[in-house]
């Protein structure tokens, strides 16, 4: 290899010989600060012991008029406190709270504690408040407090509710929070590998009256682990009134596991011939390509005569599949690049 000499491992960097005395630093600070703006007038904050009521007050104030950095800091502190505060105090603070922002943070603190302790039942106060509070803003805030934790498992453990129930809530902000929680849990908590989350998302999508939100939920949830009942619900959504939802269901069917692929492919092929909308047909082509990857080429070819206007789309898929790439994410990206 050209220029290759003896290797050496990276050394620890030398300690910078630049520590200055406090006086020098203060002088430099005065000079440099003066160049940017006048010396400030804000008194330095003083450390004090933490308490739950104090942290709640501070968060309330930060949410009222604090900077985004302060809001983030105060939320973080409250979550950090969760393991150090007696749980009954945390629950009491949560039960008494009426400000949605603070309620969400307290709900997240309870969820954090429950998650760290591995106690799905400890999510109950947050789940129950999300179900029962008369104020929809507080129901939605409670539900958002569960974001980022194993909330599907917690609801299953409660045996009292599921995301499908929240998807039927009369308040749009609650339905929105439910969908966002599921998307977050699928993508960021389980990275698409959790069957219960995939199936909860399909059930919630089926229960949602808002087709755009249902489509968003299906589009953003991995169906890698979805079982036959969930696939059946997706097939039903291929006949939904809303074209966007039909398209989302078609793409979701393309994402199912090999064990479910046969049923998904049959449903997609059947729908392709009956489907009136070109946008949905294009989504069905994508679903079929996803199911088979390189092996999907003959299936796609067989559909060329159904709608000649989609021939360019079929060609684009065939070209992308012909690259021989073995991962769906790469094939989709290469198709987009090939299409310019």
């Amino acid at each position, binding site marked *: 290899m050209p220029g290759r000499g003896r290797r050496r491992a*990276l050394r620890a960097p030398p300690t910078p010989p630049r520590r200055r005395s406090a006086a020098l630093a203060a002088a430099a600070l005065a000079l440099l600060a003066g160049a940017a703006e006048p010396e400030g007038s804000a008194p330095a904050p003083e450390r004090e012991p933490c308490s739950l009521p104090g942290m709640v007050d501070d968060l309330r104030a930060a949410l009222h008029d604090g900077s985004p950095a302060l809001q983030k800091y105060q939320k973080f502190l409250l979550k950090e406190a969760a393991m150090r505060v007696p749980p009954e105090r945390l629950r009491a603070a949560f039960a008494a709270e009426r400000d949605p922002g603070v309620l969400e943070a307290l709900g997240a603190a309870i969820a954090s504690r429950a998650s760290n302790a591995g106690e799905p039942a400890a999510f109950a106060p947050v789940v129950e408040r999300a179900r029962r509070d008369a104020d929809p803003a507080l129901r939605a805030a409670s539900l958002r407090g569960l974001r980022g934790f194993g909330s599907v498992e917690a609801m299953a453990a409660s045996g009292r509710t599921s995301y499908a129930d929240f998807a039927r809530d009369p308040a749009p902000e609650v339905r929105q929070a439910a969908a966002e929680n599921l998307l977050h849990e699928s993508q960021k908590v389980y990275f698409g590998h959790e069957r219960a989350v995939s199936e909860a998302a399909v059930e919630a999508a089926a229960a949602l009256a808002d087709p755009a939100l249902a489509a968003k939920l299906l589009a953003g949830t991995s169906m890698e682990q979805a079982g036959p009942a969930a696939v059946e619900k997706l097939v039903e959504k291929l006949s939904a009134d809303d074209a966007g939802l039909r398209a989302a269901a078609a793409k979701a069917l393309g994402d199912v596991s090999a064990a479910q692929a046969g049923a998904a492919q049959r449903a997609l092929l059947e729908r392709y011939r009956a489907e009136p909308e070109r946008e949905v047909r294009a989504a069905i082509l994508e679903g079929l390509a996803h199911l088979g990857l390189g092996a999907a080429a003959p299936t796609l070819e067989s559909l060329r005569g159904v709608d000649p206007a989609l021939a360019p789309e079929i060609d684009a898929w065939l070209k992308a599949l012909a690259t021989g790439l073995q991962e769906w994410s790469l094939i989709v990206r290469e198709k987009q690049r090939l299409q310019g």
Partner: protein
Amino acid sequence: MNRGTVPGVRRPPPSPPARPAEGRYRWVGTAGAAALLVAFWAAFWPRGKPEVAPPAPGAEAPAPGEAAPGEAARHRPSEEDVVPMPGCFRGLREFDRHATLADLRAAILRGGLDQPFAEYLRGRLAELIGGAPERARAVLAWAKEASGAELEVLLGAIKDSAAVHDPGVAESLLATGEDKAAATDLRAAALDALETQHKLEPATMARLKAIALDDGADAPAWLATRTLGRVMKEDFEHGGSFEPYWRELLAIGQTSRETQVQLLALEMPSYADPVLGRESIDALAQIMRTDPDRAVREMAAHRLSVTKDPDKVLAIYRQAFPAERDECVRWAIFRFTVRVAGAGALPLLAEFAAIDRRFKEDHQDFVTLYASGTTDFARIWTGKEERHQCLGEEGEER
């Protein structure tokens, strides 16, 4: 099973794995954090009764949900209310509202920063810098006089600010990264801040490559390489070309005398997964066949696995497998053969398993996985049992 989302690699992207150099430059490393915590507890944690002012008469907090309280109305903790953790301040709300850059600098200089508060100061400083290049340059000047956690907060704030995208600020950061007279941690932090760029010009890439190939640069060489790779990802994911970046990274991978830098240069495309052109294949094959470091040979095998010319790569793998003596490099060639050709690779895997019986079960695993009907290598890989001890302590390929 550790389900890495870079197929064929069992570790979590997108952040590159912690390496010695990166570990040193995490803004509060484990040792640093421990030292800071000890200092904090010694300096601030009350012994016995908390030394706080008693609540002012009539200064109770309002009922939950009422308007935000003023500073005077904040809850003052009783002894039984105290939560054993750092991070609470009297006067922080006022400070947040009125602090100038200079006030924030003074707070940073006071030291004793626990991690969350340092993050707050970094975030607030970034907000105050905003899109103003002159403010970013003033903070950079302060950073040149700082070290340790202070340096990390100051340069982190520049990195998080909108002003980092100003060409003049970016140039100042690069110049700081190049400055051989500057301290290593300052150079490294400046190069780290530069990874926020959406795109790099060829001249900038060349300057980063020069830092990466500077034998004496240590951590800045590693950071320059990572910045090249991270901006490549950003640019590529927004429709740009990866090729100019990859040319420089490949050159670093071929010629760096620092194994960690060389390895990182070859690793960085893993986070964008561009389909590499035919022109890279020979150089990567040469590295895979001849590099003295096992990890580098494994990485070259990985890099060949997303290619515009799968037939040529398969031929290279076929030739390299019997010539290679290391089990882990052979395992890399084996599994990346699957990534290149999917089920079509099974006959070649059978050949490999006949050469080295340690791979017979792997061959059978892949036969079974493809027989299930799964086609996507990302899913095949998550279902594959790990049969070789090729993972290091940090989850890196070894």
